[in-house]
């Protein structure tokens, strides 16, 4: 990959990668850091990664960096913080629109399920591509998407009934 190819990748894929990471982290600064780190990885591998494969590489590296970061944060999270989060999550609240409701439902999903659903919906990746990005096998990808959709549907249905 040439320098101009790399710069073109920045123009083409940084927005999508940022949206994906932002939706997963819910933290703009953290998402920006992850994007920067991911593109740095691409730059370091520029000799090995072709322009055509760059997007896949970016989402693969971004996904794994994200998962590492989230796992590390969870390890550092104190018991009190977890309890506080649970208490807040269990509180009934009102949602202004479907988007907000769906975001809340998404936040309640396990990290892996959240990522595969967003890869599927945001970027339109196939099962095979998600398999390649996440390192999961095809069955796991299908099952995670299935479980995530059912959980999202249940949450939305429950909240709509409440309203």
């Amino acid at each position, binding site marked *: 990959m040439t*320098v*101009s190819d*790399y*710069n073109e990748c*920045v*123009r083409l894929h*940084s*927005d*999508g*990668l*940022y*949206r994906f990471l*932002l*939706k997963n982290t819910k933290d703009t*600064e*953290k998402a*920006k*850091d992850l*994007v*920067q*780190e991911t*593109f*740095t*990885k691409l*730059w*370091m591998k*520029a000799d090995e990664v072709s322009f055509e494969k760059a997007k896949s590489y970016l989402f693969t590296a971004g996904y794994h960096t994200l998962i590492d970061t989230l796992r590390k944060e969870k390890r550092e999270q104190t018991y009190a913080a977890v309890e506080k989060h649970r208490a807040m999550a269990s509180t009934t609240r009102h949602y202004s629109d*479907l988007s907000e409701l*769906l975001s809340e*439902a*998404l936040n309640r999903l396990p990290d892996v399920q959240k990522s595969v*659903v*967003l890869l*599927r*919906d*945001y970027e339109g990746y196939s099962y095979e591509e998600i398999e390649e990005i996440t390192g999961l096998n095809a069955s796991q990808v299908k099952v995670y*998407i*299935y479980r*995530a*959709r*059912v959980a*999202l*549907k249940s949450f*939305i*249905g429950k909240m*709509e009934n409440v309203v």
Partner: protein
Amino acid sequence: MENIHRHNYESFFLDALEHRLSRAQEAELNKFLLANPDLAEEFNSLRGEELSFAAVRNEDSIPDTIDSLLLAPASQKEVEQLILRVQEGDATLDEKILLDRWSAQYPMVQKERALFEKTKFQADTNIVFETKDQLLRKEKGRIIAWYTYAAAAAAALLVGLLLFSRTSSEALSAGNRQPQPPTSLAAAAPKVEEQKLVSGKNPWTKKTSTPPKEVHLVEVQPIVDAEQPEQHLVAETYVPLPNTESPTIKTEINSQPQEEKNILPMAPILQPQEKQSATKYYSSLWAFASSQAKEKIWGSASYPQEKFALAFTQREMQKRRKGEAPVIEFEKKNQSYKESVRFRIGKFEFKKDL
């Protein structure tokens, strides 16, 4: 598949439950069930009418024909799976037709389908990564031009040092009232090295075989303030000096550079900008480091606590502010050269193989 009769109906039942019958076979099965009510009852029990979906479905929509019974969903899970297969594009044409029929016939299926449709996320294209310029890399031509300017600046500084050295030597000679023959420029450089070694203050410097190394020190001011990083906007950074005779230029900074005598002011690689944030500074610094890595070496950034990390950012800085400073190390692909450059920028110490 052969025609259905009382001795082979089980396989038809199983295929029907798995929605693997063709339209013609479905019609044939329906006729068979109408003709054999006892088997129709058995078929219905196989379909698990007692499962949750059947229990909650609208009583008004319960079909009264065998044909409709055949097409009725057996459980909520079955409905969910079919909706998801259709929604995700995995369903066959028959499954799509079946779901449409279920949706038309059962309000519960219709409601489930509508809810699943809402679980699809749409990317908000208004959200963009605004600091793309920090990710962009310079074209090779520009890097060469940069090196040209850097080399010119470094050469000018080297000449200045040699002139200064000669002037000092002459002044010393005059002070001792012991006239000495004039010293050539070529002979001056090794003297710098000898003075350095005699001083013994620099742990990085070791006497080596020819060609002799030139040791230059850069005085570096801390660029990172734990509380107010914006106040440290300017940093001295290392510029590699050209040496046509030998690539073994060694530049280093120890922990107390102000005590060293042979200090050269180096042209800053990164042009400091007013109100430049720490994040931007580190980003541009990393861009420089990466360009070095791209051109000559492969690079990695390592932290004492972690085995490998690639970029350091303001966030990481904040995390590690109380810990040990991260160290950025570069190693040349060809390990035959062991000559290296180490330099420190603020809390960061750099080592670079040449």
